[in-house]
Every structure is written in structure tokens, then in C-alpha cells.
């Protein structure tokens, strides 16, 4: 829990200012009573008598001491969809019954109670009030939130003490994961130990063959049934189990489509980030080493492939840092420098809306250098039908300022989709599979095909 505190302690009454309410009551009462007395109009005096009483009551109970406020906001790192809590501890002197705090609203945070305003009744004798507001984080990312303005008011709203605005706190909202499962192993296991069947034989679990016993064979591997039948000692030979380096490459040059947070519309980057989290969790649980490269975002350091659950947290943290299109320099330079870090022989899963030509070109290059490359298409399905896009959806894809530009933008997007289809066909023709992200089982068929292709003999460049 991170504390974002802003405490104001003041002596005396300097912090208490009269509100327009008390000024109104006093001025109206005095002027009208004067007119009533001078004009011998008892009815006028009666008309403003309540205002005079309210003014006198407010001034008689004017608070004498300054209040103080302390706030906390936490947790400062949470998965999207979960809630953090803003808590304010307000110490009020006697005669300060009304406490209110207004939180700054944020498009990707939702107050669970439906309001950004917290109100409390301190009562006449209570010395402190605690106000709490659970706030749900709706979208992954890094945010500065929790700014608030507290105010405490005296009786009848006569005097008010305003605090300095409470500053913001940085909150990291980790991406949630879309459900993903795969029953298919990886095509090019290159590690030491793992869950994938190796091309070579060794001490694994997957049956390969039965052969005569030889020096060095473990007795546990002796197949007694076959040995009895053949009268010679036979052992079961297994495939070695190896792990794979899976590198998840996220194309963050563009973020296409409108985003509505958890449960709402998903942009291309939302899909990519959540799919990356799901893939990372799945493959890390399966014992693979998983790394992360983000193209097009400047503040995300590359993560080399490692195993273990701590790597999942590193990947989520890296994904939460993504701000699309913030890369410095040209797209090609940034992409080339990052992809040069890839370990040879690994599996590269490129999550992209297939809009950036740079990412596609690098996918070609990686495939040529012997990586197993799989492109996962993250463009929202709604964006594929240019004719049916609403103006809001179209603006989320290609921002425009003038509504007259809608037909032109729609036409341009249609042409871009045609170009994209051509690019995808060329990619497929070059042997790089492209699959749209559809959650569980999205990659099974294509990984199975890649496994078969990996086992088949092929011509290698020397």
C-alpha cells in the first residue's frame, strides 16, 4: 500500500473562509431589517428573521481549529478488473459536521459505488472521519491517479476550509489474461530440460522404441515383458524432454480500434497485450522459457527468455508500460535493433494487427534466419468490415477531426485493408503461418503443422 499523503495543519482560523451562504444571509438580513425598522414594516423583519438566525448560528459556531487530512491509495499494482481503494482520514474540529472529497475522474477507472464524490457527516462531536472509495481499474497500463480535493464545512455551510489538492499516485494496472490453452508442443525444442519431445532420444517420458540393453542403461528402463518373451534384456527407449525459448513479440506501433477496458471493446493492442499475458502464463507453466520484445514503444526493456513465475510478473510489468507509437527514430531501426537480440532457434510469436510493414519485414527476416515464426493477427474483427464501421469506430482506427472526412477515411481504410490482405497472402506464401487470435486453441492447429514440418527433412543453407 502506497501512501499519498497531503496533510495540512494550521493554527487559528486563517484557513476558514466565509462562504457565499453566510455572506448572503448576513447582507440580506441586515439590509432588509434596516428597511423594515426604518419603514415600520414588521413583516419585512419577520421575512428575513430566519436568515438572521442562520447567519448568527453560523458565526457563533465558526470552527476555531484547522482540520487535517491524510489519504492512501492502494494497492499500487493490481490486475485489470480489480479494485484499488482510496481512503481519506479527515480530522475535524468541533462544529465541522460536513466533509466532502471530490476525486478526479479517470477514463479507465470506475468508482465501484458509481460516484467520484465522497460525503460524510462528522456529527457535532466526532473528531475524525474515514472515507473510502473502491475504484475498479478497467484497462492495463500505468496511470497517475488519485488526485482529490477535500473540503470541510461548518454548520449551515457558513465557513469552509479548503485543502491543497491531493496529488496523484502512480498505479500499475497489470494486463489480465484471455483464456488460453494449447495441447500441442513446440516445434523446435532447443533447451536442456522441459516438456517438449526432443528430436533426439534421452531420459524423457515419451516412448520412442525398444532396443537391447546396453552399458549405461538404467535398470528402471528394462522392459520385463519384452525381455521375457525374447529371452534377452530389452529396454524402452524414450525421447528426451526439452524446453523451448518462446519469444513473444508485440507490435505496438499502432493501437487500432476503440477500447472499453475489461469486458468492453478491445483494441488491437488490448488483444495483443492480453493474449501475450495468456501465452506467457501458459508456456511458463508448461516449463518453457519465455521472453518479451515490444516493437514501437520506447519505455519497455526487452526481456530475455527465462522460465519461472517471476518471469510472468516481469512480462506483465513490461506490457503495462506500453504506450503505443512512442519509439524513437525510424520503425525499421528500432525493430531491427530489438529483433537482433533474439536467441537463434527459438519460437517467435509475433502479435500484430499487420498494419506496420516494418514488423512484417522483420518476420520475413527472422523466418529466413531459422526462427519458427508465427504471426498472431490482433486486428479487431469489427475493423475488417470497413463499410459497417460507425463514425466512432472509424475515428478509433484513423482519427479525423472533420465529420466530412468520414467517407474519405472509410475509403482509405478499405484500401488499407486490401493492401493488408495482399501482405498477409505474401506472408503465408513465404511459409509463415498467420492466425487470428481467438483465445483457447487458437494456435493448436498451426503449431501441430509446424511440428510436423520441423520433423520433415529439409534443405539447409550451408
Amino acid at each position, binding site marked *: 500500500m502506497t501512501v499519498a499523503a497531503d496533510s495540512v495543519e494550521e493554527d487559528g*482560523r486563517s484557513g476558514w473562509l*466565509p*462562504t*457565499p*451562504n*453566510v*455572506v*448572503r*444571509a*448576513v*447582507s*440580506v438580513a*441586515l439590509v*432588509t*431589517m*434596516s*428597511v423594515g*425598522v*426604518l419603514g*415600520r*414594516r*414588521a*413583516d*419585512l*423583519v*419577520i*421575512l*428575513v*428573521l*430566519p*436568515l438572521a*438566525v*442562520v*447567519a448568527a*448560528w453560523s*458565526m457563533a459556531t*465558526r470552527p476555531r481549529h484547522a482540520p487535517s487530512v491524510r489519504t492512501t491509495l492502494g494497492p499500487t499494482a493490481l490486475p485489470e478488473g480489480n479494485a484499488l481503494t482510496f481512503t481519506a482520514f479527515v480530522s475535524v474540529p468541533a462544529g465541522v*459536521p*460536513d466533509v*466532502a472529497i*471530490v476525486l478526479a475522474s479517470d477514463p479507465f477507472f470506475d468508482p465501484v*459505488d458509481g*460516484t*467520484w*464524490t*465522497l*460525503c*460524510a*457527516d462528522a*456529527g457535532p462531536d466526532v473528531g475524525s472521519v474515514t472515507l473510502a472509495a473502491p475504484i475498479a481499474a478497467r484497462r492495463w497500463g500505468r496511470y497517475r491517479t488519485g488526485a482529490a480535493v477535500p*473540503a470541510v*464545512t461548518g*454548520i*449551515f*455551510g457558513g465557513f469552509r476550509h479548503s485543502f491543497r489538492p491531493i496529488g496523484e499516485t502512480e498505479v500499475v494496472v497489470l494486463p489480465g489474461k484471455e483464456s488460453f490453452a494449447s495441447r500441442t508442443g513446440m516445434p523446435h525444442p532447443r533447451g536442456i530440460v522441459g516438456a517438449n519431445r526432443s528430436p533426439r532420444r534421452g531420459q524423457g517420458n515419451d516412448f520412442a522404441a525398444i532396443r537391447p540393453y546396453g552399458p549405461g542403461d538404467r535398470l528402471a528402463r528394462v522392459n520385463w515383458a519384452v525381455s521375457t518373451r525374447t529371452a534377452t534384456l530389452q529396454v524402452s527407449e524414450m525421447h528426451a524432454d526439452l524446453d523451448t525459448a518462446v519469444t513473444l513479440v508485440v507490435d505496438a506501433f499502432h493501437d487500432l480500434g476503440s477500447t472499453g477496458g475489461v469486458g468492453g471493446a478491445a483494441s488491437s493492442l488490448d488483444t495483443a497485450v492480453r493474449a501475450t499475458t495468456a501465452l506467457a502464463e501458459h508456456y511458463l507453466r508448461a516449463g518453457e522459457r519465455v521472453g518479451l520484445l515490444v516493437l514501437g514503444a520506447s519505455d519497455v526493456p526487452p526481456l530475455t527468455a527465462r522460465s519461472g513465475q517471476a518471469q510472468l510478473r516481469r512480462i506483465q510489468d513490461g506490457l503495462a508500460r506500453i504506450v503505443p507509437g512512442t519509439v524513437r527514430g525510424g520503425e525499421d531501426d528500432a525493430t531491427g535493433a530489438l529483433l537482433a537480440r533474439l536467441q537463434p532457434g527459438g519460437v517467435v510469436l509475433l502479435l500484430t494487427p499487420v498494419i506496420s510493414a516494418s514488423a512484417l519485414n522483420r518476420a520475413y527476416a527472422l523466418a529466413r534466419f531459422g526462427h519458427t515464426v508465427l504471426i498472431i493477427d490482433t486486428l479487431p474483427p469489427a475493423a475488417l468490415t470497413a463499410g459497417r464501421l460507425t463514425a466512432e469506430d472509424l475515428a478509433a482506427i484513423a482519427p479525423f477531426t472533420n465529420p466530412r472526412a468520414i467517407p474519405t477515411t472509410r475509403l482509405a481504410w478499405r484500401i488499407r485493408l486490401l493492401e493488408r490482405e495482399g501482405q498477409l497472402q505474401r506472408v503465408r506464401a513465404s511459409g509463415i503461418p498467420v492466425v487470428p487470435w481467438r483465445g483457447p486453441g487458437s494456435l493448436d492447429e498451426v503449431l501441430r503443422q509446424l511440428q510436423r514440418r520441423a520433423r520433415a527433412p529439409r534443405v539447409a543453407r550451408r
Partner: protein
Amino acid sequence: MSIREDVAAALTQEGRDHLRLRIGLVCASIAAAIVTSAASGAARPTGVGVLFTLALLAALVPDGHIPTILIGGHLVFWFMTVPRPTSAAAIAPAVVTAILLLAVHLFAAAATVWPPGGRIPRSAARRWLRQGGAVALATIAVGGLTALLVAAPLPAGTLVSLAAVAALGAGAIAAYRLIAR
């Protein structure tokens, strides 16, 4: 978004409790204008209309000077249209209008104390009602006393008038010093 959606969104953002405060302000103001009109003995559609417009403006912006102008407008309307009370019964409309003006003031004050969108704690609403009720009871008591005085008028005296003016002056100075401190 259409105008209807804009208005619906604005009302939603204001919150139900704030909406009630503003509606209460307008209703109290209209009631005060009607009572004044009735006390004057004639229909005053122009005055009521002007006060209704002012009430709407005050409900839209309760934290500015418009509520002050609204209450001032009510007082001017009363002063211009209602004759000086000559019987005990003539004090009753003044007491009712005074309580309604108190309601206008308190609704406007509450709308500035509680930010829009928030839920006003029930205990706070009850406290405001209790304290406002106490002020209203005091007004009724003073109104009753005044009705008795009007029914049996005391002989006019310059000394009493001067004392009242001096008390008002002292009150004004004391209020100014308290506020300015």
C-alpha cells in the same frame, strides 16, 4: 449525442441527491412567490414569472450570487406588492414566506456544501432538517409575538426606533468583523 442525451448525462452526473436539492430550491421559491402573490390580494404573473426564472437560474448555479439575487427579488416583490400588515392574520403569510425563503437559502447552501454527484449522508440530511426546523420554529414564535403586537399596537416611540437602528448597526459591524477575521 442528442440534446436529450446531453441533459440526461448532466442530470446523471449531478446525482439524485443534488437534483432533489435543486428541485427543492425551485419549488420553495415558486411557493414563496405564490404566497406573496396571494398576500398581495391580486394575481401577479409578471413577478411570479421573473422569480420563477431566477429560481431556475439559481438551481443551475447555486454557488454563485444568483440565490442572493433570488432572495432579494422575493423581498422586493413582497415590499412592492404586499401592504403593511394591519391585523394579526396578515402576519401569517409573512411567516410562511419567511420559512420558504429559509428553505430556498438552505437548499442553495446545501447544494454548495455537498459536491455534485455525491450521496448526501442521511444523518447529515436529518441534521440539516433538524436545525432548519429549529430556525423555522423560532420564526413561527417570533411571528406569533409580532401578531400579538400588531393586534394590540404599542404607542410609537422615537427612543425604541433609535434603539432598534443602533442594534442593527452594531450587529452589522459585529458581523463584518467576524466574517473579515
